[in-house]
């Protein structure tokens, strides 16, 4: 969303040369402790407030989730699931939004140089003025997060409040969370805090409590403390082992240089053939033979 902050880049979409890399930065993370989240949607409201977004007033379709999905305005959304887990009824409430993967699929898929960047602190940000609106980020994302605006055809998603973080503030959602279910700090500190929370949950009988920091995408800079980390999919479809799709890997990985090489090779083969064999030119006897054929036929 934002223009470049005072944050250094680690990666830049569709850019083959590395960004300046001398300065060090501490990796940050947002920890969402689902066991402390009451689903009040203050984070959702704060996100709209801080980012000057306004969501349409929709309708109720029979659930608490409103709007019903992430949109170009709603970058974070509370998702509610009613479920019996091990004989105990639970109302699972998960704050959905960009996970800020360490290996971001959106960035990998993006064809527009600098439309998606990853700062050194780990935040993945969309630089909207560079966005061409192709929607490749949607295809690259293992969590189904980016949304393309109908108004300006740009892609939007949570920025982890990179503008706030750049000036030493926590993201707006973390700031307003009344129960401190959302915390923000260095990734190391967040993992340490998560460990304490997990210990508390285990004491309360949630044996499979754990941290959701999926290695398939290199870990994320938004992590969850889940009571049932062995079954993340019960939390409104949080993927169990998210990875960048092999199709995206194929398309954005080896295919690209191979394809260019193939095209170049085709041209070269032609050229070398020409150099070695020369043109295939029509000879005088060909013309004569043709003329003769016509004459014969005319007779």
């Amino acid at each position: 969303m934002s223009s470049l902050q005072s944050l250094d880049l680690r990666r830049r979409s569709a850019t083959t040369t590395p960004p300046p890399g001398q300065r060090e930065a501490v990796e940050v993370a947002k920890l969402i402790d689902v066991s402390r989240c009451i689903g009040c949607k203050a984070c959702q409201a704060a996100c709209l407030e801080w980012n000057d977004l306004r969501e349409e007033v929709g309708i109720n379709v029979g659930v608490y989730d409103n709007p019903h999905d992430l949109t170009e305005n709603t970058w974070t959304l509370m998702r509610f699931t009613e479920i019996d887990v091990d004989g105990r009824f639970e109302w699972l409430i998960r704050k959905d939004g960009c996970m800020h993967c360490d290996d971001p699929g959106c960035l990998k898929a993006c064809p527009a140089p600098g439309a998606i960047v990853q700062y050194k602190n780990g935040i993945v940000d969309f630089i909207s003025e560079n966005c061409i609106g192709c929607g490749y980020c949607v295809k690259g994302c293992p969590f189904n997060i980016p949304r393309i605006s109908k108004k300006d055809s740009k892609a939007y998603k949570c920025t982890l409040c990179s503008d706030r973080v750049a000036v030493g503030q926590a993201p707006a959602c973390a700031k307003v969370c009344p129960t401190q279910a959302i915390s923000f700090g260095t990734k190391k500190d967040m993992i340490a805090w998560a460990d304490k929370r997990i210990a508390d949950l285990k004491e309360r009988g949630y044996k499979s409590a754990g941290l959701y920091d999926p290695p398939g995408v290199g870990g994320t800079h938004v992590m969850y403390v889940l009571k049932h980390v062995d079954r993340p999919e019960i939390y409104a479809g949080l993927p169990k082992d998210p990875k960048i799709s092999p199709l995206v890997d194929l398309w954005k990985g080896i295919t690209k240089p191979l394809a260019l090489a193939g095209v170049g090779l085709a041209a070269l083969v032609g050229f070398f053939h020409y150099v070695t064999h020369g043109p295939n030119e029509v000879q005088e006897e060909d013309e004569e033979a043709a003329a003769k054929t016509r004459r014969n036929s005319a007779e």
Partner: protein
Amino acid sequence: MADKTTIFDRYTSGARLNHWINAILMICLALSGMALFHPSLFFLTGLFGGGPTARIVHPWIGVLAMCSFLGLFIRFWRYNLWGKDDSAWMRNIKHVVNNDESKVPEAGKYNAGQKLVFWLMSILTVLLLTSGLAMWDSQFGEYTSIEQKRLAVVVHAASAVLLIIVVITHIYAAIWIRGTIRGMTRGSVTGGWAWRHHRKWLREEVGKTK
């Protein structure tokens, strides 16, 4: 010598226009497509007014190109039906590459290589069309799942690259086989050209004028 040269009509003006419209559209598609395919070619979007416009026009050019290709297909498909001779021609293609066509069966309007180009183009075009529609989010975004779109982009990219290689072959062949290009520019070829490369076709043409 000029008096010895006979001239045969090969393409009508309609067919030539159709071909060149298609060629221009294909080049535009290739340029805009490659621009979005590889970062080092992103600069090509400048030809189309920048990234967003390149993204917007590419599929529309694609739609036009499909229409024009359909015209070509209708015009030429029956000349590209595969025959026994084509297989024999294919088996002996190395002689053709070595500029020696005497060792392959006489070719009709199109030789087996050209037919192969035709069918490859047709198949790849269909693949490009379907995969292109599946990933055309601004128009048909809701009709496909993300997984389908992912498959579509891979198919689209692979088909496009293959098509480009086919097109390069097509262009090179036209350059290499001298006298070919005038067929698509002026609509006619010399009898010698026909004798040398499409003798069977020459005989048919001569037969017609009897």
